[in-house]
């Protein structure tokens, strides 16, 4: 099939007549490099905000495609690939890189050219990857990243000589500072013009023999006057602190407590501002609309429903900012190191800790991130426990219920309030459930011998404002997209069902509506947990996405209340017992209520078996524990 590409007679016959402005063939350039060489930073630099944003984060973790605009309206697609040390794949994410480069990946044609990005501060070792990549025979630009680090730490090399030695163009850049990118754009321009690949004139070593490859890399380094920079002094100093047996864990604890307190207190003004804006705009729009039914739909159904979720955006962004700082700074690798012994006790290893930490943001990218785990059984165990980690979609529900039922008092001076402590407790609850489940899985169905743990510790780096801002913008888009589609749809549905059947042309009291009918139908099942029918409706809708619970309650209580109705929190406080509230929190901590997660588990485990088990186990556990929590709290209070 591929043989016919260059065949002129054939292609002339089948070519459509030239149209003005017809789109030219897509040109694809792959970004390849070892882990932590700055591939994603470069990718974000090149594509800016023009990268495809999926409707849930994480689908792009495997290989992200983005468009780079070049001069004269031309453009080229770049693919960001997972980091590899060689082209011999060992893990699932490395297989993606291998498959894309060899043209075996569905949906992606074999790349036209390669951007090989290497860390210039550790060039001798990173050059080992150049041998297999150059031997692919694709036009390759060798990008030496972290030029600023190399210079400030006193390293040097002769770029022109390296280009000679490798038989490929070489660019010395700093992707994070955006220095030296012109040469990359030049190369990409050439790639779109279909520049003929230069046959490498150089002698490459036998790729399979790593010591020989390494010796080759050293000799290239020597010939180009490469002088390795001094070791990263600050990384050593920070490690002495963060890996200190006492200081390390202590600092981590203080930071985590501070973050929880900030989510409750720091985000409050912003949250109140958004809340006020939604209320005022709701009133304003209400006055503009003449029809009473239409006014009720917009103000009670949509505004109160969707608005009650949107106000949690500041908290969610705050959480993402914190996790972004952890990921970008390089601390996550240290956390994995510290956690390894504990994880080993539960049958997992330190590498499982990284996806679990990112699951605090969202389980979907976390499940994708398990691809870095070599052992298949460890990987499945990590996938199965990841949704127990408290994801950001639970945050609105937690904040709503805790705000309504837990008194706002200080616990440890002004540093930690009772509400923040309650939320921390829920986070710990999820983590403990995850660990015990891992233990259960690894001592039964997923039993395996202890897997090895090898993890490179990257130097600490300042997270760039750019990369953090990109994350937040990305997350806001996902969140608002969901609010504008799924949650909006559910809110409208609930409003319609709450206003039917019409009684002499007038909507019924909510107690006699279809919504209430459905709610009352499921009520017997959830009554033992202390939930009423309204919570039941919320639980049904939360299967779409957890935060939909809040919008559904917002709509139901919004219709029920009149103009002077108190906020959602007060309404809940009057309508739910303390036992029911605690039960609801416990239920949300354990239950598997997220279609995106189930879909991604199915894809990553290759079937419905594991997602079905996961759903049944988590929901069953949630039901039993919520029941116990309700009974215990009701008994005590």
């Amino acid at each position, binding site marked *: 099939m591929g043989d016919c590409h260059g065949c002129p007679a054939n292609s002339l016959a089948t070519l459509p007549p030239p149209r003005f402005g017809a789109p030219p063939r897509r040109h694809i350039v792959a970004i390849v490099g070892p882990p932590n060489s700055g591939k994603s930073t470069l990718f974000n630099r090149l594509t800016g905000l023009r990268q495809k944003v999926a409707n849930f984060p994480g689908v792009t973790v495997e290989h992200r495609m983005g468009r780079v605009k070049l001069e004269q309206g031309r453009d080229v697609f770049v693919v960001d690939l997972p980091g590899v*040390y060689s082209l011999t794949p*060992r893990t699932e994410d490395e297989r993606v890189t291998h498959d894309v480069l060899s043209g075996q990946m569905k949906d992606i044609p074999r790349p036209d050219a390669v951007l090989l990005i290497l860390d210039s501060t550790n060039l001798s070792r990173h050059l080992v990857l150049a041998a297999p990549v150059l031997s692919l025979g694709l036009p390759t630009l060798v990008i030496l990243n972290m030029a600023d680090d190399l210079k400030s730490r006193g390293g040097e090399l002769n770029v022109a000589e390296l280009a000679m030695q490798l038989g490929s163009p070489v660019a010395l850049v700093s992707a994070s500072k955006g220095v030296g990118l012109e040469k990359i754009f030049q190369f990409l321009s050439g790639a779109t013009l279909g520049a003929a690949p230069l046959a490498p004139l150089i002698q490459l070593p036998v790729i399979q023999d790593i010591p020989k490859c390494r010796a080759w890399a050293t000799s290239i380094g020597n010939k180009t006057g490469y002088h390795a920079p001094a070791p990263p002094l600050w990384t050593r100093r920070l490690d002495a602190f963060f890996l200190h047996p006492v200081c390390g864990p202590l600092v981590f604890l203080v930071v985590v407590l501070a973050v929880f307190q900030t989510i409750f207190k720091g985000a409050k003004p912003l949250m109140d501002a958004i809340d006020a804006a939604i209320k005022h705009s709701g009133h304003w729009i209400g006055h503009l609309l003449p029809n009473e039914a239409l006014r009720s739909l917009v103000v009670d159904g949509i505004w109160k429903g969707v608005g009650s979720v949107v106000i949690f955006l500041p908290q969610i962004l705050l959480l993402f900012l914190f996790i972004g700082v952890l990921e970008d700074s390089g601390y996550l690798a240290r956390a994995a190191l510290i956690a*390894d012994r504990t994880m080993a006790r539960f049958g997992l290893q*330190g590498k499982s800790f990284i996806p679990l930490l990112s699951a605090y943001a969202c389980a979907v990218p976390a499940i994708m991130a398990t691809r870095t785990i070599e052992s298949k059984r460890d990987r499945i165990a990590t996938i199965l426990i990841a949704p127990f980690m408290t994801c950001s979609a639970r945050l609105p529900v937690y904040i709503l219920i805790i705000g309504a039922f837990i008194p706002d008092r200080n616990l440890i001076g002004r540093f930690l309030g009772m509400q923040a402590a309650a939320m921390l407790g829920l986070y710990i609850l999820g983590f403990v459930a995850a660990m015990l489940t891992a233990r259960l899985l690894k001592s039964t169905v997923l039993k395996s011998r*202890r897997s*090895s*743990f090898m*993890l490179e510790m990257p130097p600490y780096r300042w997270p760039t404002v750019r990369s953090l801002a990109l994350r937040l913008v990305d997350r806001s888009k996902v969140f608002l997209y969901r609010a504008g589609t799924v949650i909006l749809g559910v809110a409208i549905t609930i409003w319609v069902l709450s206003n039917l059947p019409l009684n002499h042309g007038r909507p019924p009291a909510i107690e006699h509506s279809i919504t209430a009918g459905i709610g009352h139908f499921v009520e017997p099942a959830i009554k033992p947990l202390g939930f009423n029918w309204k919570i039941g409706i919320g639980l049904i809708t939360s299967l779409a996405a957890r935060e939909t619970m809040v919008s559904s309650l917002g709509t139901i209580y919004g219709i029920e209340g009149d103009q002077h109705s108190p906020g959602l929190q007060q309404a809940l406080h009057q309508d739910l017992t303390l036992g029911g509230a605690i039960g609801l929190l416990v239920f949300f901590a354990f239950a598997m209520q997220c279609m995106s997660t189930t879909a991604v588990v199915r894809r990553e485990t290759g079937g419905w078996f594991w997602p079905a088990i996961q759903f049944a186990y988590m929901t069953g556990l949630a039901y039993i524990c919520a029941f116990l929590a309700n009974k215990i709290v009701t008994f005590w209070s």
Partner: protein
Amino acid sequence: MQVSFKKRSPSKKDRAKNLTELKPGEAGVLAKLDLPEDDARRLMELGFIPGHSVTRGLSAPGGDPRVFRVDGSEVALRRETAVRLILR
């Protein structure tokens, strides 16, 4: 190829040292990786190549896993892996 000391109980002096016996900050030259092909390959890709120098760095609280400086980077290994990396 490997010299066996089965007759005498191996004392530290005659037995080849492995990575776990390095003190913090101490360096040694790697002789061989006594591991399955798969693991040995990944370790070599990470820089653990026979003939290269390895320096012991910090460790996790509790002493395991340990960080080793090798070929310009730092890599954490569990004790059970480090014990199989034999020094000259």
